[in-house]
């Protein structure tokens, strides 16, 4: 079959398709998102965005129970949300195969923490495969279904940023659709009430023992013999690639394709065959601690960091070799952090929050960039939904005191994910919270995915659309206001009124993301240099399309989308739309 250059995530999707996966339900999260977007392009696969990872995993479980191979994908922190079903689906097992992608983000390219998902495989007692490039991503996705059905377990497929977002060469095969496995009622297997769960737990422990036997002989735990016995390296995933880049065929390598459970005898034999045993693994000492528990002498985190991603130079440096060096410029290069785009509807709203000096409990999305100077308007970012529940606690701790200075901000997709339950708590347990929903009609940060508020589904077809105002009212919020974040005056008035109110309120800041294709942009603004007094008031919004040149404000016409927010800050009428001379 044809050879093709595929992104790791696209290769997983291809593997799902070739393995006859029929149902996909996921929540987007970098670096996992493209698996599901890519799977949705195969007409034979039903694919959807679920409101959150727990819903996605339970949906995938239901599909597997009904006898079709199923899938759900998420980023590492998404598995925290879906951990509840995972730990018990481990007990029930599946009917048809069920595969879960969890994508870690060592180096935190686009994440709020650097957790190591391998711990979940061990604690939930489910097998985890760990590909190291696109070819393995495709092959392991298919293998995961075989294991899932052979051992009656969900299977985790662990990606990481460098495997998920790197392209490499794969060979394609055709799709093979297995027969649907008939659903049979099996209360003792599927009703995890205590009496049944007590009978299932031993099954899980026996399954792990059988999986260890499989791992001992499987080719995916590959022993690559080196030129001599001086050095033996145990590694997996992208770390394997860095090790091979440095050592080629000179060192012995035990390449673990299955991160859990681990092949005890194979590891003992490998250790015995080399003089020095080193584990090269990103993040936590997961393999290292296991190997130490076997009583073997091993090095790992005494050499390599638990922080950030690795590279070939790091491997060279830590294992006593010379790393190539380049020559940097002597002078400091100004950083270029990500910024809110020109025309971003969040900008105006955050400017007002900053101006009013409010305490802002933030959430997960593009609007985390509201924390960056010059806006600097965000106080906390924890996890999906934490803004609203955190604000509830914040206002309860201030009970009796006239606070009126704290708000929560949360995006439309994040609100659907796990903000709604927090809002129910606000209404039910009666705090005076002011919640601002930033409704930009899309899931922005992960690259424009549809969600239940947008009116479209993953395939782009029209879908049921959540009425946010009605939802907020239905849970018991009586004060629900809608503002246009391009209108600074309106935003300020409404935020002042609602934070002053003696009951809970929701402000919906509504305007679609400026990058959406259907959003019509105005022609760029320009500066009347005669009128510009160089006061820099316009620079307070941190718009990348505005800059200073020869002491006057200027507009980058390639970036400006004519949103007009800057114009509202100029007291001298120097910023003008294309219609004004």
């Amino acid at each position, binding site marked *: 079959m044809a050879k093709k*250059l595929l992104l790791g995530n696209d290769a997983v999707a291809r593997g799902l398709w070739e393995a006859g996966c029929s149902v996909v339900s996921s929540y987007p999260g970098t670096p996992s998102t493209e698996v599901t977007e890519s799977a949705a392009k195969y007409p034979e696969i039903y694919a959807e965005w679920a409101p959150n990872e727990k819903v996605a995993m339970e949906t995938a479980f239901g599909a597997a129970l009904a006898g079709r191979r199923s899938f759900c994908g998420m980023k590492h922190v998404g598995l925290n949300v879906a951990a509840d079903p995972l730990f018990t689906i481990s007990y029930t097992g599946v009917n048809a195969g069920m595969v879960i992608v969890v994508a870690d983000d060592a180096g935190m390219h*686009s994440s709020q923490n650097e957790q190591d998902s391998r711990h979940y495989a061990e604690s939930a007692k489910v097998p985890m495969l760990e590909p190291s490039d696109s070819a393995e991503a495709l092959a392991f996705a298919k293998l995961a279904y075989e294991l899932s059905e052979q051992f009656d377990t969900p299977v985790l497929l662990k990606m990481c940023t460098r495997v998920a977002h790197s392209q490499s*060469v794969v060979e394609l095969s055709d799709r093979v659709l297995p027969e649907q496995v008939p659903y049979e009622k099996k209360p003792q297997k599927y009703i995890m009430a205590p009496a049944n769960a007590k009978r299932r737990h031993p099954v899980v422990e026996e399954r792990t023992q059988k999986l260890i036997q499989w791992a001992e002989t499987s080719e995916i735990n590959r022993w690559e013999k080196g030129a001599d016995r001086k050095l033996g390296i145990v590694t997996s995933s992208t770390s394997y690639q860095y090790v091979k880049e440095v050592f080629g065929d000179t060192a012995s390598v035990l390449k673990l394709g299955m991160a859990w459970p681990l092949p005890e005898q194979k590891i003992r034999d490998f250790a015995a065959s080399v003089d020095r045993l080193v584990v090269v693994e990103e993040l936590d000492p997961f393999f290292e601690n296991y190997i130490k528990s076997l009583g073997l002498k091993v090095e790992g985190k005494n050499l390599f960091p638990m922080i950030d991603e690795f590279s070939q130079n790091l491997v060279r440096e830590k294992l006593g070799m010379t790393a190539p*060096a380049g020559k940097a*410029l002597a002078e400091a290069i*100004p950083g270029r*952090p990500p910024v809110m785009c020109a025309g971003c509807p969040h900008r105006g709203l955050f400017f007002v929050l900053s101006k009013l000096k409010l305490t802002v409990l933030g959430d997960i999305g593009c609007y985390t960039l509201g924390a960056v100077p010059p806006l600097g308007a965000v106080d906390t970012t924890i996890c999906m939904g934490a803004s609203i529940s955190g604000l509830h606690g914040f206002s309860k701790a201030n009970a009796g005191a006239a606070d009126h200075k704290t708000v929560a901000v949360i995006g439309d997709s994040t609100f659907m994910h796990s903000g709604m339950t927090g809002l129910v708590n606000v209404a039910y347990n009666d705090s005076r919270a002011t919640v601002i929903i930033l409704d930009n009609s899309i899931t922005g940060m992960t690259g424009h995915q549809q969600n239940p508020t947008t009116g479209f589904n993953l395939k782009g077809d029209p879908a049921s659309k959540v009425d946010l105002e009605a939802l907020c009212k239905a849970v018991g919020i009586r004060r629900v206001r809608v503002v246009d974040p391009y209108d600074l005056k309106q935003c300020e008035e409404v935020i002042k009124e609602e934070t002053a109110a003696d009951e809970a309120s929701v402000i919906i800041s509504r305007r679609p993301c400026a990058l959406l294709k259907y959003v019509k942009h105005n022609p760029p603004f320009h500066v009347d240099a005669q009128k510009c007094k160089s006061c820099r008031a316009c620079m307070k919004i941190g718009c990348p399309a*505005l800059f200073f040149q020869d002491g006057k404000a200027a507009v980058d016409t390639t970036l400006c989308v004519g949103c007009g927010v800057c114009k509202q800050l100029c007291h001298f009428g120097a910023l003008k739309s294309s219609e004004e001379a």
Partner: protein
Amino acid sequence: METKNIMIVGVGGQGSLLASKLLGRLLLTKGYDIKVSEVHGMSQRGGSVVTYVRYGDKVYSPVIDKGEADFIVSFELLEAARWLEFLKPGGKIVTNIQQINPMPVITGAAQYPQDLVQKMKDAGADVEAFDALSVAEQAGSPKAVNIALMGRLSKFFDFTEEEWLQAIRDSVPPKHIALNEKAFQLGRK
């Protein structure tokens, strides 16, 4: 053959993913093993972005480390300077001379460094700097700056012009082929 390393650097949103797609297509037709590592997610929002393209008989690591790049193709001048340390001694920089102010410069917290082309040359780099934005505009659209840069890069490779043009035709939507072919040819001059 030994693995060759090309870095494509720029500002999120400038179109570096199309440049790496084009290179990937071309190199695949030449029968090389290839790895291309990209940036998705938060950094794309106007931040500094880097794409690594590696090819050879067998490529392991998906990333390029300090002192390893044979070429750095930069969409923006400051970004070329930022990644200079990744250039191999004797490596080449192909850069657009366009300057895009990062937020610390916009807010006045930092200055955009002056004379970067000369400073990079003084540091020993072989620098090919040109106005890729004007070339792209001449071809019909400022968005073709990525292909204009690929045109200039192509001068330093043994692949034929037709092989590059075919990779362009395979990588862009049909309605944009003529524009991109023109941007490539103007960049290659």
